[in-house]
């Protein structure tokens, strides 16, 4: 028996709303990695500290894009800030997002002020742009650097609770919907924070390996191994939280248990059980465990860490899909399920999603051309052919 309320045949929140928490998760995760270096003094993360901050910034720039594409009236988006309705969880979005954006932009500015000043010398449009960026103050002495450093530390510290707020808040948007049994759990926002950190670390590892390979840079072993260990730890917490949620759902045997059990066994079986848990959680868990506990050849360890990061990036995307779409598949009549798969070319379809997701990487490249995001990268020695 499959009955859904007639208005539920249309799924309201599309793949754009899957992408939105995914991208904000990458922001929060990348930011936390940079703060591990700036605030908690994890020196081995230095090679990636700038890159992680820049990643947080560019992802943040694009985080609202899927939302704007989704809104029926994007031209009224600012109504949320001009006429906020504070009983709504969503009303806080603009403020939280805005303040976080200011903080990350300021932190980047202070971290890279020296580099902007270096680029500001000479003529040409780029130099002019950099001069404007440093507000025509090209003072760069040990004393100014020291002051910048202190400010960065403060901002990075302040940013941690704000990053958790930004992403925990996204989880809360779903977790507070009492009408939806698949969403309504107070654990939702903790799950979202941890999965955000997992996706953030994963995207940094993934990207670091790719750019190092392209540029023939030497990979910093300490940095990668440390990231691998963090990833292992955070993914364990993230997956454990989700499993706890499932366990209590199954054990409590409430009205929702039947319908949600059915959801997991049928509509979400492939994307949730097979892909999210089996392939993309269990496999990286084992692989990262091996790299953390055993001494492996460097190449093997790198390969395992990189593969794990790819799988975990996918895992978090699947998690967002299973939450956002999965929750809407269950009818509020508790008697059936609807269907959804995005079209390829439609406005909120797959091509749009892919484009939105690739844009930040392009911007990161431009950023890197402006100031180096890997200032300490060493070139691998040239291997001469025939030598």
């Amino acid at each position, binding site marked *: *028996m499959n*009955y*859904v*309320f*007639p*208005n*539920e*045949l*249309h799924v*309201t*929140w599309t793949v754009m709303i899957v992408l939105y928490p995914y991208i904000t998760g990458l922001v929060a995760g990348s930011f936390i990695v940079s703060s591990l270096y700036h605030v908690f003094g994890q020196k081995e993360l230095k090679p990636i500290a700038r890159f992680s901050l820049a990643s947080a910034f560019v992802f943040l720039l694009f985080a609202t894009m899927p939302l704007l594409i*989704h*809104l*029926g*009236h*994007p031209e*009224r*988006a600012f*109504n*949320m800030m001009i*006429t*906020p*309705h504070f*009983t*709504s*969880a*969503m*009303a806080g*979005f603009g403020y939280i997002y805005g303040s976080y954006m200011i903080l990350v932009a300021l932190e980047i500015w202070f971290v890279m002020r020296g580099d902007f000043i270096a680029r500001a010398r000479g003529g040409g449009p780029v130099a002019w742009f950099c001069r404007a960026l440093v507000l025509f103050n090209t003072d760069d002495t040990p004393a100014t650097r020291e002051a910048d450093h202190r400010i960065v530390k403060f901002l990075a510290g302040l940013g941690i609770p704000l990053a958790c707020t930004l992403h925990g808040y996204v989880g809360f*948007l779903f977790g507070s*919907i*009492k*009408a*939806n049994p698949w969403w309504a759990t107070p654990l939702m926002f903790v799950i979202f924070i941890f999965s955000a950190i997992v996706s953030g670390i994963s995207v940094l590892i993934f990207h670091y390996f790719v750019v190092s390979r392209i540029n023939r840079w030497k990979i910093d072993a300490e940095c990668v191994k440390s990231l691998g260990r963090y990833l292992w730890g955070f993914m364990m917490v993230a997956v454990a939280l989700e499993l706890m949620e499932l366990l209590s759902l199954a054990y409590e045997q409430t009205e929702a248990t039947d319908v949600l059990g059915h959801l997991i066994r049928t509509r979400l079986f492939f994307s949730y059980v097979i892909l999210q848990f089996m392939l993309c959680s269990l496999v990286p868990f084992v692989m990262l465990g091996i790299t953390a506990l055993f001494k492996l050849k460097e190449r093997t360890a790198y390969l395992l860490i990189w593969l794990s990061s790819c799988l975990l990036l996918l895992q978090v995307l699947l998690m967002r899909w299973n939450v956002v779409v999965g929750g*809407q598949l269950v*009818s*509020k*009549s*508790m*008697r059936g399920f609807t269907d959804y798969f995005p079209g390829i070319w439609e406005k909120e379809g797959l091509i749009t999603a892919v484009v939105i997701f690739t844009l930040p990487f392009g911007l990161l490249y431009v950023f890197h051309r402006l100031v180096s995001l890997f200032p300490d990268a060493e070139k691998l020695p040239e291997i001469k052919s025939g030598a």
Partner: protein
Amino acid sequence: MPCDDRISRRQMIKRLAAGAPVALLVTVFPRLAFGGDRKPGEKRPLYAYAVDVSRCIGCCACMRACRAENDVPAGFFRTWVERFRVRGNGEVLVDVAATDGFVFKAAPDEDIVKAFFVPKLCNHCEKSVCSQVCPVGASYESPEGVVLVDKKHCVGCGYCVQACPYGTRFIDPVSHTAGKCTLCYHRIVRGELPACVLACPKGARMFGDLHDPKSHLSIFLRQRRYRVLKPEMGTHPKCYYTDLDLEVI
């Protein structure tokens, strides 16, 4: 010059400060005392709805009337009628009529032991969670207890669609804003009945003022046992159902 400037600014602030209580008195006091546009002593109505399930014959005249009155976009529903059929083995079959109504077979081939129809619509909840979650306040409760959407302000985020536990909202594909039952607000403010109530040939749908003890609805609710849908959601629906079976969610 800067000095003059400062003086004029101070004067401005003083004037504003003096003006504020006057403005407050002029705008707020009459509202507090007389309730806005009402005459003194007149009580504002509190509109609500009732469905006598045992009277509904599933003709779907209400759905057609609603569509005609409110220009509801195809594929979406401000109100609908569910058909429940219970088999001998306890299995429950539920379906909903297409726009033209249900298809009835002359001789049912299934072992149906019980069947009934349940009209559904927005419950105009007293604690409407849809209004609570609207980030811009475009979803709101009118002073008469009718839950409405300001189409000029709605951003079309769909949060209210997710939040309503009854599936009564949708995003209108034409206006790209939230759509829902308005209890035919344009009619009821003129003292007319909602289109669905007027169209129902069996009087299964009722509308009235809860504040008026002599209204048809108040009398009906005093005489009959009723319940609301999903009371556990804490939304305090104002659509009351009599003779509702346990199967209905």
